[in-house]
């Protein structure tokens, strides 16, 4: 099979059919009027860090995610410890984020921490800890960029995902986030909003079908007391 032959045929067909449409287009346009091309998203007010955190937390909780706001890494480690203990996690997969490693370093417990785990190890892990590069407050969404961190599988395969997020990386809207992502485009970008879910059986909600059934965000807000 000739790829360029198929390509040329498709392009020829597109051009030919668009040309055939020309006489109808003018009449159609006049009949249907113009679309509102002036549409622009409304300009957003500057939001304080506190409001962004609150919006993020509220929207994350609305989709079943947990959110703990902490002051620093040691506090984050305490939250992580309690999550590990509550879920009786023995095998904990870590991404290669320095922040995640630092937080996990504070924990002196009898559990196995595995960095950059192979896929088959991830399948046996009880919990995955990653960072997130950005977050969207209006939807409670975590944004993971592959160029910064190896977190694609650690955030996906284990049944529990714990994500460490720094408050200064939260933006209110998806639009703002897309602008930032475009300027430094990673090969893989993953948006995560809550835990894995399905409604495929009688539209009944079931959690944790393929991805993690639990999502816990540890939000570090160092400016809290300033």
């Amino acid at each position, binding site marked *: 099979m000739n790829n360029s032959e198929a390509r040329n045929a498709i392009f020829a067909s597109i051009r030919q059919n668009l040309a055939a449409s020309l006489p109808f287009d003018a009449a159609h346009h006049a009949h249907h009027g113009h679309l509102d091309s002036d549409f622009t998203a409304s300009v957003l007010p500057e939001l304080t860090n506190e409001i962004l955190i609150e919006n993020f937390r509220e929207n994350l909780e609305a989709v079943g995610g947990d959110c703990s706001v902490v002051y620093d890494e040691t506090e984050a480690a305490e939250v992580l410890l309690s999550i590990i203990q509550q879920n009786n996690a023995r095998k904990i997969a870590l991404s290669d984020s320095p922040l995640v490693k630092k937080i996990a370093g504070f924990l002196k417990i009898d559990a196995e921490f595995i960095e950059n785990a192979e896929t088959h190890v991830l399948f046996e892990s009880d919990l995955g800890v990653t960072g997130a590069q950005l977050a969207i407050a209006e939807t409670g969404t975590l944004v993971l960029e592959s160029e910064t961190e*190896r977190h694609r599988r650690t955030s996906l395969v284990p049944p529990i995902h714990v994500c460490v997020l720094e408050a200064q990386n939260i933006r209110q809207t998806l639009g703002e986030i897309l602008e930032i992502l475009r300027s430094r485009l990673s090969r893989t970008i993953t948006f995560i909003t809550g835990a894995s879910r399905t409604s495929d*059986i009688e539209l009944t909600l079931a959690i944790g079908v393929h991805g993690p059934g639990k999502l816990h965000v540890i939000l570090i807000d160092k400016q809290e007391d300033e």
Partner: protein
Amino acid sequence: MNQLTAETFDQNARAALQDTQLRGALKNLADTFGERRKTAITTVENWEGLRDRARAIKDETLLHLDQYLEQFSENAEKAGAKIHWARDGREACAIVLELLKERNASKVVKAKSMAAEEIHLNAALEKEGINPIETDLGEWIIQLADETPSHIVVPAIHKTKGQIADLFVEKVGIEKTDDVDVLTKTARRILRSYFAEAEVGISGVNFGVAETGTILILENEGNIRLTTSLPKTHIAVMGIEKIVPRFTDLDIFLKLLPRSGTGQRLTTYQSLITGTKRNSTDEGPEEVHIILMDNGRSRMLAHPTTRQSLACIRCGACLNACPVYQQIGGHAYGSVYPGPIGAVITPQLIGIGKTKQLPYASSLCGACREVCPVKIDIPELLLHLRAEIAEGTNDTATHKFSEKLAFQLYSLAWSRPVFYKFGIKMSRLMQKFVAKDGKIGKVSGFLSKIVPPLGAWTAWRDAPTIAPKSFRDVWKSDLENK
């Protein structure tokens, strides 16, 4: 697989109406997704403006589709993806098959893709001894049942919990249960063993960004992330209409699609994939193949009315809103794409010859147009297709004769008052043979043959009779009495 065809839509629909299990399964659709959608669209400012903007972006893209496709394919290849072109479904299947053979791969996991359904990819692979495993819960269920999807978003909507439980008992040997969580966890457990070993992952694409060569795939379950990140090779099947020009255009479509489809602000996961990984130590597949498929799409560009079919983002809102779909479900349409959007794109994709009934599978109520996030005028399209069918009609000569005769009598009656009065008198006389209690019930036999529309009309509803006294007569006699 006992698959229904579009040619027998009327029989399919009648059978579906008798299927109480199906009716039960469909009952919640409008209430659940319909109501959730209504709430979700209030969580965004200027919903109407978003719809207009989305449509404008789609129109702009389609009018310059060649340029945007060129841009998309160049940028995707620059980032390391391999672009393949397929004129039709057969070519697309052959490309997938060849990729699998070259890699000597037989362990294939699949994410839900309407494009792959459209070209019957699984059947094509199975013929060559490769059994791709569907990993979306709904798709896996219907794969186990050897059925086809009946909804664009929730493919197993036609099955009840009890039927699914029975299926799992039979096929994967679990204990009988009516707990949806148990059924879901079963799917997770079994499908993970396939993910662990898969060599190739096949997915669809929701949007392709021309300026970056990025593909975006939306989901709730996580199986698409697993399919596109664990195997060494990722193959994405993509219709050529899926392009948007700019990366930031995704903002609008990510606001519209989840809200319209499932009533969510955002689905749980979005994967934005631009080519392959940068370094061999990075995560993700070594190869990404994108198959750009025409399969009848470029033909739709030839007229603004048909072109709007290509603006569809496959949210399923028109299915959920459609009073016909709500009653008969997806299978009755006998086509891969069911519901209102299916009734307009199927005849265009596979030809009107075998799908003549689909454009009539609608009451033209306009509910689909109302909810469509990209404002596709589906009723306009249905009428356009009906006109096409009527123009190329091969109705019997008698039908044409009776129609001509009817219209000739009609125009005669309206040309002189005396003819009109005579016609009404005659009709009043004639209807005595068929009328009962002031209405005409089911007409069959001789009369239905000499007056053909009467037979068809009264097969499902009563026809009103002509009043014994006309309004004029009543008016006159009333005046005289005063």
